[in-house]
């Protein structure tokens, strides 16, 4: 009888403990998230994903928002174990710091890829890239592959030098740069804009603009979208576990954040993740060389 009671006690204790969350062990994993629009938005988007990764990896995970321009120096200083940034940042960190490719984000019509477009208003007299001579144009942030580099490259490929042949080109400041670029043309402040195809797609889907508002003068080939990478110092087993956790995400995956149960992918504005190969980023390398951008920039 005594043994029976002892066994029952053990069984009950085990059952109660198994219902509790696994304790987090080890030093925190630090993820640097490139700011897309603002620090606030970045944190809101990626907090649920970070909480999910913490749950899956069984270790504390810390989300750190980073300005695109600072990402390389902070990564080089060893501030992050993993980084989430655009595909040009992946190439820069790969070439300069041997970043390991983890997974690529999927979003919109082109899935894990996106493209850069040069747009004008539908009623604009500008019909081709050559017609941009002497016109005012607005580009996205300089390290944006589909908001700056791809369009600059398209123009160079068409024998048009934006620095010399445009009257003037501007780069927007502050938050929501890609939307500002699109609205810049929509409201007539600029004759043309360098717009990411994905932002045009999303703004159209959300009803912010209409497909009839713009004409696409040219669109680049597709290039990989935002990417997760791991520092070469991270244990390969952890990187593999991290990748698996990302690939296992489905639209139904939820996580609890501040007492609210949230859908991880929905919150992060992501359709899912895919594993690409490093050679899939070669079109970015080719463009960056032609446009004379990091990591190949020469003065």
């Amino acid at each position, binding site marked *: 009888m005594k043994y029976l009671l002892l066994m029952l006690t053990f069984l009950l204790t085990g059952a109660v403990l198994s219902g509790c969350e696994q304790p987090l062990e080890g030093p925190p994993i630090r993820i640097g998230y490139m700011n897309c629009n603002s620090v606030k938005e970045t944190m809101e988007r990626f907090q649920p994903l970070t909480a999910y990764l913490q749950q899956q990896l069984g270790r504390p995970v810390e989300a750190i928002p980073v300005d695109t321009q600072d990402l390389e120096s902070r990564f080089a200083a060893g501030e992050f174990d993993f980084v989430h940034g655009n595909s040009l940042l992946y190439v820069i960190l790969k070439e300069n710091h041997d970043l390991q490719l983890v997974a690529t984000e999927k979003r919109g019509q*082109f899935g894990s890829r996106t493209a850069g*477009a040069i747009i004008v208003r539908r009623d604009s007299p500008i019909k081709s890239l050559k017609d941009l001579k002497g016109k005012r144009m607005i580009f996205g942030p300089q390290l944006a592959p589909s908001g700056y580099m791809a369009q600059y490259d398209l123009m160079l490929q068409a024998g048009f030098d934006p620095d010399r042949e445009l009257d003037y080109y501007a780069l927007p400041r502050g938050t929501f740069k890609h939307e500002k670029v699109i609205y810049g043309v929509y409201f007539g402040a600029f004759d043309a804009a360098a717009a990411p195809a994905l932002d045009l797609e999303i703004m*159209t889907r959300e009803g912010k603009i209409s497909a009839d508002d*713009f004409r696409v003068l040219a669109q680049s080939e597709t290039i990989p979208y935002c990417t997760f990478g791991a520092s070469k110092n991270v244990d390969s087993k952890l990187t593999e576990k991290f990748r698996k956790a990302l690939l296992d995400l489905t639209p139904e995956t939820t996580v609890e954040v501040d007492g609210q149960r949230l859908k991880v992918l929905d919150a992060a504005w992501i359709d899912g993740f895919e594993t690409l*190969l490093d050679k899939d980023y070669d079109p970015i390398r080719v463009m960056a060389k032609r446009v004379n951008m990091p990591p190949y920039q020469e003065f």
Partner: protein
Amino acid sequence: MLRDRFDQLMMASLVVVLLFMVVVMVGAGPDEYNRENSAISRHLERERLYKARVAFIERHFSPVIALRDSGALPEALLKLEELQRTLPGEAHIDLLSGDILLRMGQFDRALTKLAAAVRRNADYVDAASPLSQRPLLESAVTEGLPLVRDRLRSQPDSRSVAQVVKDGYYLQSRLAGGCE
């Protein structure tokens, strides 16, 4: 048994009713004329549905088709994005997206979209249907499937590529048809 007139009358009525029922049952089956008539009306019904569907597609998708045919592929995709708001889940949005993505060389996305379109509306693989899109589907499978298969060989662990390959084989199987 039939002792009086009333019993005889009842029996006679019963026999008449039974005979009537037999006649009705024998005559109720579809005769040649009825069978033909119902086949014609089924055919007409189908024709009417096809016509309505074609008119629907023309009414909603002609701007997309015009953009596609003029080579304005990014604009055509944006127009579809806009239509998605008013016609969510419409198979023709998937079909045209697949068509445009194929023209843009996005084989994996094209296969996925076209497979979704066929899953929603099998008319696209039916050679006899006015909605048939077999040449488009054939070219997606012929051009796209070998590419994604090669990709799966180099990335055997990729679930996304495996899913695209599945979509490609699904289209191939729908184009091949069932047992004949």
